[in-house]
């Protein structure tokens, strides 16, 4: 009994709690890794946001070249004023003449003179608008309805102004569309620049028949370094394909676009030996 006394079964404290704690440590680590660490997953979104922010700028800058377009839309408004004029004058002139005719009789001479002056002024004002004066001279000889005609002229002017505003809106719309087109053209310029640099590095193989087209997919870094080149459509001439591929790789880093938002990660470039 006394000898065995020292050899008590040894029991460590806190077996259960330490197991729970060990599990807790690993669960915490796992949670941290899953939710705390985001490896580069969000980067592409940030890039697209920047692109959209910088797009409106070119639209504002290209306001000057647009006057050339104005002549084109002018023919369009012509039918419209006619359409609008017909409904509008009918309701408005009717109430007004009644009031004015009642006032007119007491001061005929002065009123007539004023009317004449106004008539003279009206064509002058109308002159800058090319198409409106033409219809006016015809009603003028009929005279006596004078006031209503003035009002009609005014209405015409107003509607013309309205139409002009509409035109302006339309022109602005067109400008925006054009700006997009312009961007595409600038893109073409960028592609041309790329092709120019690559072409200078192409060593043409001697025996090419015809002018076959080869299409390459190029992936580049923002610095212009070529990451990968893939032949999408072969020209049918293997030596030429290989020559172009070598030239693309040799052209790294590629020239960068004038405006950074034109940068594209993936490019599709077409080559023809005789270009």
């Amino acid at each position, binding site marked *: 009994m*006394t000898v065995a*006394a*020292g*050899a*008590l079964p*040894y*029991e*460590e*404290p*806190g*077996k259960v*709690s*330490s*197991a729970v*704690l*060990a*599990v807790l*440590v*690993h669960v915490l*680590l796992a949670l941290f*890794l*899953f939710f705390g*660490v*985001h*490896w*580069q*997953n969000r*980067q*592409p979104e940030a890039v697209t946001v920047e692109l959209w922010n910088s797009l409106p700028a070119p639209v504002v800058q290209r306001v000057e070249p647009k006057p050339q377009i104005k002549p084109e839309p002018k023919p369009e408004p012509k039918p419209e004023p006619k359409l609008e004029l017909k409904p509008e004058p009918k309701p408005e002139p009717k109430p007004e003449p009644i009031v004015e005719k009642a006032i007119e009789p007491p001061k005929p001479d002065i009123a007539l003179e004023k009317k004449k002056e106004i008539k003279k002024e009206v064509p002058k004002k109308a002159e800058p608008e090319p198409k409106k004066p033409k219809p006016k001279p015809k009603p003028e000889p009929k005279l006596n309805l004078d006031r209503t005609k003035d009002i009609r002229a005014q209405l015409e002017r107003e509607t013309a102004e309205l139409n002009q505003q509409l035109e302006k809106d339309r022109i602005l719309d067109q400008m925006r569309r054009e700006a997009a087109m312009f961007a595409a053209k600038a893109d073409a310029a960028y592609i041309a620049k790329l092709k120019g640099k690559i072409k200078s590095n192409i060593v043409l193989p001697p025996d090419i028949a015809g002018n076959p087209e080869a299409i390459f997919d190029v992936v580049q870094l923002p610095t212009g370094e070529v*990451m*990968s*080149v*893939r032949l999408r459509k072969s020209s049918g001439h293997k030596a030429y394909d290989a020559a172009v591929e070598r030239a693309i*790789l040799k052209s790294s880093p590629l020239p960068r676009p004038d405006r950074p938002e034109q940068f594209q990660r993936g490019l599709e470039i077409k080559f023809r030996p005789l270009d």
Partner: protein
Amino acid sequence: MNVTQDLSILSLITNASVPVQLVMLLLLSVSFMSWLFIFRKLFAIRQAGIQTEKFERDFWSGSDMNGLYQSAVNDRHRAGSLERIFEAGFREFAKLRAQRGADPSIPVEGARRAMRATYQREMDNLERHLSFLASVGSVSPYVGLFGTVWGIMNSFRGLANVNSATLAHVAPGIAEALIATAIGLFAAIPAVVAYNRYAHDIDRLAIRFESFIEEFSNILQRQSGVGK
């Protein structure tokens, strides 16, 4: 394979090759075991320290040795290491002194031997599982490295089939492989830290036990001299 693909931990682990996944599993279980022992030893060593403190206070406060012995015998299950050492020594001393006529140094020597034996047993209990922590700390980085090397070998072999090698082709494979090293290090670092810390704590406890044994032997020797 493009660069913007999902590189979350989960996809990296599920996309890894089977040997790498096995290595990860092994390391994960090893890590769990090592954390289990880290906490168990933490509680055990802390408790041993508290009990030693308490017994030393009781012993040096001049209380009756027979009373201490009785309390140690009565609740043996709650007794600390130092209390058990004291109990073994005192019991042996009392028994040997009962056999009259012998050399007075004999009971003291016998008590010291009994205390030594109990001390060794207690130390063995305290140091249990520490070697596991030491092995985890030294081996698991290598196991993780093995998984990484294997994964990188695979990703480079896959690269051989591609015409134009880019970083985008290799990067996901390497990232997958490196997860193994990360898990290995996660298992190893706490194990090494805990091992060093616990070894130091146990050393200090051992020194306290040994000095107690020496001091208690002196007291017994004085008592046997008085008894003679």
